[in-house]
C-alpha cells in the first residue's frame, strides 16, 4: 500500500466521523418530487416537460398483499434536476456529454455561492452580471477552476404561480446575462452553474443574444447545470462540497436527482 492510499483512507475515516459528529453538515438542496411542482412551460405546440406522476402498483392489498410500490413517470428535467451538455444543441457533439458517460468524479466538487437574494427580492428579472461576479470575487477570492457556481436568489422560498411567475409575455425570474456566463465558462472555467429557479437561465432569457445563454455556454463547453434547487441560503459562499450524481440514463440529457452539499459547521450560512 502506498502512502497516498493510506492517507486517503484515513481521510475518508475522518470524513465519516465528521459527518457523524455533525462537524460536517449535510445540506439537502432538493425539492420533493411532487406532482404539482411547477415545470418549465414552452409554447404549447412544442412537446412539454412531463410532470412527475405516481401510480400505486399495490399497497398491501389484493394487488400485492405484502408490499407497497409505485410506478413513477416524469421528464428528465422535472423537479430538482441535472442538465448534461447533450441537453443543448451547443453541446450535442461533445464527448461524454450524456448523464451515463460523464466521468463520475465530476459529480463531486466544490461550490461557490453568489448571493443575489437582495436584488431578486425587488426585481423579478434580476440579472447576474460580470460586475456582481467580480464584486463577489473581491470579497471571497477568484472562483476556483472546475468548481460549481450557484446563483442564490431565495426564489425557492416561493411556491405555485409565484414560483413560475408566468405573465402574458412569459416567465419572469432571475438569471445570468450572456456576459456573466462567458466570464464563468470561458474565463473561470467552472464545472457547472446552478439556480433555484425552474431553469439555469432567466425567465426572459429567450430575448438575450444568444438566447438561453446559460444553457448555450455551459453545455457548449461541456459543463453542467443544476436547477430547481433549494436551501442555497444554508450554504457558505465558499467551502462547501457538492454531491450531485444524476441517474445513469442511457444517453440521458439530464435527470432528477438528490443534490447534497457538505458544509463545514462553522462555515454554515444562516
Amino acid at each position, binding site marked *: 500500500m502506498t502512502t497516498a492510499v493510506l492517507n486517503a483512507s484515513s481521510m475518508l475515516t475522518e470524513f465519516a466521523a465528521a459527518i457523524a459528529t455533525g462537524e460536517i453538515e449535510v445540506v439537502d438542496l432538493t425539492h420533493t418530487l411532487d406532482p*404539482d411542482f411547477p415545470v418549465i412551460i414552452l409554447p404549447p405546440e412544442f412537446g412539454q416537460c412531463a410532470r412527475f406522476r405516481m401510480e400505486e402498483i399495490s399497497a398491501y392489498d389484493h394487488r400485492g398483499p405484502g408490499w407497497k410500490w409505485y410506478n413513477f413517470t416524469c421528464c428528465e428535467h422535472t423537479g430538482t434536476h441535472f442538465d448534461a451538455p447533450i441537453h443543448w444543441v451547443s453541446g450535442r457533439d461533445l464527448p461524454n456529454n450524456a448523464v451515463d458517460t460523464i466521468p463520475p468524479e465530476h459529480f463531486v466538487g466544490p461550490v461557490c455561492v453568489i448571493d443575489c437574494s437582495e436584488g431578486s427580492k425587488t426585481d423579478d428579472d434580476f440579472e447576474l452580471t460580470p460586475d456582481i461576479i467580480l464584486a463577489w470575487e473581491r470579497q471571497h477570492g477568484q472562483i476556483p477552476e472546475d468548481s460549481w457556481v450557484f446563483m442564490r436568489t431565495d426564489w425557492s422560498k416561493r411556491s405555485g404561480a409565484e414560483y413560475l411567475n408566468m405573465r402574458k409575455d412569459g416567465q419572469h425570474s432571475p438569471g445570468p446575462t450572456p456576459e456573466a456566463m462567458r466570464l464563468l465558462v470561458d474565463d473561470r472555467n467552472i464545472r457547472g452553474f446552478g439556480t433555484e429557479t425552474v431553469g439555469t437561465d432567466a425567465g426572459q432569457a429567450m430575448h438575450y443574444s444568444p438566447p438561453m445563454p446559460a444553457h448555450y455556454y455551459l453545455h457548449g463547453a461541456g459543463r453542467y447545470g443544476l436547477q430547481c434547487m433549494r436551501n442555497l441560503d444554508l450554504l457558505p459562499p465558499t467551502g462547501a462540497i457538492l454531491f450531485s450524481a444524476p441517474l445513469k440514463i442511457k444517453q440521458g440529457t439530464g435527470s432528477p436527482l438528490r443534490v447534497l452539499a457538505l458544509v463545514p459547521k462553522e462555515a454554515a450560512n444562516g
Partner: protein
Amino acid sequence: MTTPVVPPPKKDPQKRTRVPTRPSHFRSRAALGLAAAAAEGRFMLQRCSECGTLQYPPRDACASCLSADLPWMDVSPKGKLIAGTVVRTSTNVYFRERTPWRVGTVQLEEGPSIICHVHGDVQTGEDVVLINRLDKSGQAVFLAIPQGRTANMEDDPQMRELTCDPKFRRVLITDARAPNALALAKAFAQAQASIIFIGESESWRSYPAHEELRAVPKVEILPLDVTDTGSVLELCGEIGGKTDILVNNARYVRPGGIMNRGDVIFAKDEMEVNFFGLMRLAQIFGPAMRGRGADGQNSATAWVNVLSVYAWSNMPDYGSFSASNAAALSLSQCLRAELSAGGVRVMNVFSGPTEDEWHQPLPPPKVAPEAIARSVISGLKDGLEEVFVGDVAKDLIERWRAGPKILEREMIENAGQDA
C-alpha cells in the same frame, strides 16, 4: 301545476344512505330500439315498411301484414290519456319505495295504445304528449306530459326520476382550463345547480378565464388534475360524497395523426387526459356516485363526457386525438354498464371542431363553448345518453349510421384539405 322542488335539507348523518334499486330492466331485443331512441330523446315507434302500420309494443313482425321489415321512425307523440291508475302496491322494490305512482293508457293519434307513466299535471281524458325517456334501469319508458307547459313541470317527481335535472344538484366540472369551463359554469348556475365545483390543474399556471370563473355564482374552485391519480383521490376524498353530476370536460388536443408526428408524446398526453383521465375519475368518483344513485332529491344522477364526434370515425388531420376519443367513447360504454346499478346516467356530448386555439385554422362551422354548455344542460334535463352538438356532429353521426365504411372513405378523402 307541480309543487316546486326545494333545496333538500342537510342529510341526517345517522340515516343509512338508501341503496339504489331499479325498475325492471328486462327487455326483448326489439324493445331496445326504444332505448336507442330515448338515448337521444326521440319518440320513435316501429312502422311497417310495407303496409305502414304503426306497431306497439315492439315486435318482430307486422301485426297487420307479417312483414319483418319494421324500421324505427319518428312519429307524432300526441295522444289522449284514456285511462289512469295510481299504483299503490308494487312487487318491484324501486316502485314500492316511490308509491303512489301514476300510470295510464294513452291512445296515440296515430293509433296504438301505450301504457305509460303519467305526469302529475295530466288528468285522465286530456290530450297529452308522450315522451320517451330512460328510467333508472337505463331502459326506455314513456311518460305522458301535458301538451303545453305547466308551472314547474320539470319538478314532477316521476319526471325527475327520468331526467338528470341539475336543479339543486351539486356539479363537478373537471377542468377549469378547458375553453368550455366558463360557459359550463354559467349554464349550471343558471340551471340552479346548488354548488359548482370546478377542478383546476396546475394552479401555478394562469389561464384566461381564471377571474371570470371565480365570479360565477356558486362556483368553488378546487385542485384537480385528471392526469394525477393522487389529485383525483384527494378531491374525491373531499367532495366524492356530494358529487351529483360529474362533467368530464378535460380534454387534450393537438393536431396531427401518425406520421406527421415524430413521437408518441402528444398521443400519450391525449390518452392520459382523454382516456386515462376518464378512467381515473371513474375509478375514484364512480363508486361513490353509484352508491348515491337513490340518495334523495339530489341523488347522484349523471356522468357527462364531453367528447369529439370523431370518436365515431377518425379525422386523419386530428387522427391521434380522434383515436383517444374513440377509446374514451368505448370506455364510456363500460362506465355506463358499471354505473347502471346505481341508476346513474352516462351522457356523452359529441361535437365537431370547437371554437378554440387547436382548431383555429379550420373553417366554420365550429362549436362555441356556449353551445356545448347549452347542450349539456338540456341533455341532462332530458336525461339523454347521446347528444350531438352542432351541424358537423349531427352530419357526421347521420353519415356514420348510414354506413361507417362509407364515412371512413369520406374522412380519408377530406383529409388535409382544411387543416
